[in-house]
Structures are given as C-alpha cells and as structure tokens.
C-alpha cells in the first residue's frame, strides 16, 4: 500500500506542476457544459419570447383592396409593409429568402366578401425554412382567426348562433410539471458531467502510460523492486482523484449557471439544489474508477502520446452512445438499463432533476454494475502491464 501511495503522490504532484495541462483539464471540461447550456437556453428563450412580443413586418401585395383585413392584422402585432411588385416577384423573393412570408390579396376581394363568396388570399412561404416558417405560422394563425370572426359575424347577422358552426372545442391538457419539462432539456447535462469527469483524468492517464514510455522513464521504473500491479494501481488512483475534482467542479458550475438562467420563462424549474448536486456527485462517483481504468487501459495500448490523445478523444464519445440510443428510441427507463454504465447514471440523474422518486434498487444496480466493470478494467490494466510489449 505504501508503494501505491508513493506512485499516487508522485503522479498527483507531476500533474499539478504541469499547470497548462491541468488548467485546460479542470477548466475546459467542467465549463464546457454550462457555457454551451447557457448559450442554448438563452437562445431558445429569446426566440420563444420574440414570437409573441415583437412586431413582425409582413410584405403585402394589394393591401389597399382590404383595409379591414389589414387593420385586423396590424392589431395582432403584424405590420403591413409594401410587398414585391407582383405575385411572381413574391414567389421568387420567398424562394431565395429575401422575404420570409408574403401575403397576396386579390383586387376582387371586397366584391366577393360583399357577395358572401369565399375570397382567395395567398400566403407565400417556404416550409423547408424552419425559421421563416415560424413567421408564416403567425400570419396564417392571424388570418384564420379573422376568418372565424367574419364567419361568426355573418351567422349572427342571419340570426344563427355562431356556436352552431362549432360542434366541439378541443382543450389540450399538459400533465407535465415544471420540473418534468426541465428533464427534457436538462437530460443532456448528464453527458456534460461524464465528459468533464473523463476530461479531468485524461491527461494523467496518457502521461502515466504512453507519455512515460515516450520519455523513456518507463523502463527504469519497471526495473525497480516494485510489482507492476502496484504501479498501475497508483496511476489509476491518481487519475481518479482528478476525475473526481473535475466532476465536482462541473456540478458546481452547473449549479451556478442555472441560477443565472431565466428557466421559469420556459416553464421549467429544474430540481438542482445543493442537495441534488451532492447526490449527483455520489451517483456519478462509481463512474470515476471505470473512466480512469478504461482510459489508462486504452492509453497503455497506444504507441505514443499523440496516438493516445486521438484514441481517448474518440473514447470520450463512447458514454453518449447508450444515452443516444435510448433517447432516440424514446425508451422508458427500465431496470435492465441500470446495468449499463453512463446510461444508468443518466436515467437516475434525469429522474432526480425531474424531482421524481428514485428506485433504490435502480441506484444499487447502477452503482454495483459500474463498480464491478471498473474493478474488472483495473484488473485488466494490471494484467496488461505485466506484458513485455508494454515497453513498445
């Protein structure tokens, strides 16, 4: 145990002394998630708010033919501006993206309205352009509303209740809670934690294996009266320490970032207080050993520092795969999923953020399975370190 501690101490000191690498690992990893998150959420908040509040300029051809209609649209925050000269020019303008939407009002509209005949209004838009489509939808919704209002007035004038034309009403009732809605969006944050965790130990895992070999310090080390199992254990434990540090930092960074995000405006109140931060840390803790052992194992196979970096960068994506598959297939959490490292942690974390009760059996399976795989990988590392080919 003394030997393991000596190796651990030296690797920690070595890593701490390497300021630049340490900074990049402990800042980049933990801050990457929250920064992207703040950016994305603020963007989506801005967009959803702009929809209702901002006045939209709508180019219209033939506005003069329907003053009542244009007045109605203006009262719904749509400002009428002069459109292209002709319908053909409008089609062209929308397809190249000069305008998002153009309304075409025919000259005979007044005549047809008086005769109670359906008048034709064209809304030219490009449905393939999703940003433009949001504006077009606002225009169509306003026009439909005006349509219904006119119909109701016509029926009233003829002594018929407008309710006749409305056989039933449809009410949409959403049972999701504000915390539940957060889960959808905050689901991806579990990956950010795992990413930060892996990032924190990546450089140490490389340096203590491929780096040590490349510097020529591995061979004299192996010539010492120390078993290789103890050497590798000390190195893996040192990587674990930095992974834990990085994980803790990223959890705290998220906690702080969420405080500055106007999530209530999106109808979300994520359950992410200090207590959840602590629980999330404990839930992800078993993943630390797995991550450190896996990264050390892969780095031991590589021939150089650069090769190790390439492989480990690819490896960082591996924990996303199970999360991605389950998200795309929209599978409900099941007990079997808890056996899969990263997926188990992800599902438990999502439930926690949604403020739903956690099944103790699920927690036990996730923790045990991840730990067992971590120990297995550590054992494999030790086996690998006994091989001669290790010296490259």
């Amino acid at each position, binding site marked *: 145990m*003394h*030997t393991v501690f*000596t*190796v651990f101490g*030296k690797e920690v*000191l*070595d890593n701490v*002394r*390497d300021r630049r690498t340490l900074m990049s690992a402990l800042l980049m990893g933990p801050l990457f998630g929250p920064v992207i998150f703040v950016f994305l959420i603020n963007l989506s908040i801005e967009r959803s708010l702009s929809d209702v509040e901002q006045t939209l300029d709508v180019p219209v051809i033939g506005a003069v033919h329907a003053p009542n209609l244009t007045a109605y649209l203006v009262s719904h925050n749509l400002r009428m501006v002069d459109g292209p000269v002709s319908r053909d020019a409008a089609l062209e303008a929308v397809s190249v993206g000069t305008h998002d939407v153009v309304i075409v009002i025919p000259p005979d509209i007044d005549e047809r309205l008086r005769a109670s005949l359906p008048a034709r209004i064209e809304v030219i838009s490009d449905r393939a352009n999703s940003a433009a489509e949001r504006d077009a939808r606002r225009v169509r919704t306003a026009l439909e509303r005006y349509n219904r209002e006119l119909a109701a007035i016509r029926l009233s004038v003829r002594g018929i209740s407008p309710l006749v034309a409305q056989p039933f009403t449809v009410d949409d009732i959403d049972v999701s809670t504000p915390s539940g809605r957060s889960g959808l969006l905050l689901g991806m944050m579990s990956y950010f934690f795992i990413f930060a965790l892996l990032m924190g130990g990546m450089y140490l895992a490389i340096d203590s294996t491929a780096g040590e070999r490349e*510097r*020529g*310090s591995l*061979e*004299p*080390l*192996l*010539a*010492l*009266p*120390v*078993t290789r199992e103890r050497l590798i254990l000390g190195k893996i434990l040192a990587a674990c320490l930095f992974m834990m540090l990085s994980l803790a930092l990223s959890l705290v960074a998220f906690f702080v970032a969420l405080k500055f995000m106007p999530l209530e405006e999106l109808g979300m109140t994520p359950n992410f207080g200090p207590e959840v931060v602590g629980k999330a840390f404990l839930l992800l803790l078993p993943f630390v050993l797995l991550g450190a052992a896996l990264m050390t194992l892969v780095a031991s196979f590589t021939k150089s520092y650069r090769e190790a970096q390439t492989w480990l960068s690819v490896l960082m994506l591996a924990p996303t795969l199970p999360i991605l598959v389950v998200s795309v297939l929209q599978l409900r959490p099941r007990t079997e999923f808890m056996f899969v490292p990263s997926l188990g942690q992800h599902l438990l974390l999502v439930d926690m953020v949604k403020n739903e009760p956690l099944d103790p059996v699920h927690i036990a399976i996730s923790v045990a399975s991840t730990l067992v795989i971590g120990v297995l990988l550590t054992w494999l590392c030790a086996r690998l370190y006994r091989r*001669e080919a290790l*010296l490259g």
Partner: protein
Amino acid sequence: MIEVRDLRKAFGKVQAVRGVSFEAPDGRITGLLGPNGAGKSTTLRILYTVLKPDGGTATIDGHDVVSESLEARRRTGALPHGAGLYPHLTARENIAYYAKLCGITNPELDEKLARIIETLDIAGFADRRTKGFSQGQRTRVALARALVHDPQNVILDEPSNGLDVMATRALRELILRLKSDGRCVLFSSHVMQEVAALCDDIVIIANGRVAAHGTADELRELTGQADLEDAFVAALGRVADV
C-alpha cells in the same frame, strides 16, 4: 554477482540473443563490448527484468531474474539506455521517488539523498526541475536514481552516451568507486577505449553470441593481436565465420 547461462531472446523472427553466457563477479568491472545491434541491450534488459528470456537462465546474487524477479531487482540498480526523467519534478524529487519505491523512508531517505547527491555532484542543480537539463546532468540524475538504494549489482547500458569529456571522467571515477566498494558493475559500450580503460573483464558480443571473454591481456593473447582494437576485430571475425 551476475551469472548468465545460455541466454536466448527473439523479437518475432529476429534472434537478438542466441546463447550468451558469462559471469560478472563482485568487486570487478565487467564490460559488454560489441557493435550496434549485437544484443548487448537485450541481454541487459533481461538482467534488469523488463524482458523475459526465451531460453537459458540469469541470476543476480543467486536469484533467478524470472522466477524471483522482485528479489533480483532489489539487488540491482539499472540505468537503461536513454533513461528519461520526470521533467516537472526536481532532480531531488526524481531521485526521492525511486528511493521511496525501493522502500526507503525517513530519516534514512534524507540521509541517502544527501549522500548520493554529493557523490554524483548534483547539489548545484538538485532543486531545479529537470526540464532543460543537459545530457550530462540528466545522466547523473538517472544514475543517482539507480544507485540510491545501494544495490550490490549495477547494470549500466551505454552510460557514457552523449556525455562530454568532464562528465565521462566523473562517470569513470564513479564506476571505479563502486568497484572499490565491492560492487558488481556490468556495463555495455561500443567504445573500445572506454572498455579497455575501465574493465577488469571484457565480454565481446556480436550477432547475439559471445565472441570472446577475458581480461584485456587474455583477449590479446587469445586472438594473437598486440593491440586491443585488433583483438576486438579479430574476435568479431571469428563469430562471423561461425
């Protein structure tokens, strides 16, 4: 005391060592001399246990390098070819790391560190990080690291590579001091003069075999050459003929 019997080692199809036998007794300096790629390094790497032999045996003070490798390593101080240091640690920390791994603890640790730092004249740069050290400084630290636990057997793979005149002289003095302490010193070199000047016994290796073995005088006699360099060339010629 190092004993090597019929050692064999292949890397894939390349036979690096094909039956090397020799003895390196305590209190003597034994030199492995041979051209590049002769199998010197492979032999030494087997002795400090980072490689396993395909055949034959090697013992350090009677401990087999395969079955009792930990005990063999405990009695050995090894300086591999091109041994690297940890650039973020100071010279002293580099040496202390190895000392601790050898099981040396305080107060013995400080005392041993002080002694080896003095012996190898490292004091001037002992507390600087080793990044940017000259080749001579690096070799001295790597040597200190290998010798800090006072091993009875010292294995040095091309220790004088890249050293200037002064550093080479210091190294030579150190090796002589180890000999006078009664240690067994085994080192490899491809520099004829160095081996001739230092070694009590010379093992000439070529093509993975021992071409000749003996003191400088014995080698001259064996090959019938008055000059050691000629004796070396003659010995190599004998192997090539086999």
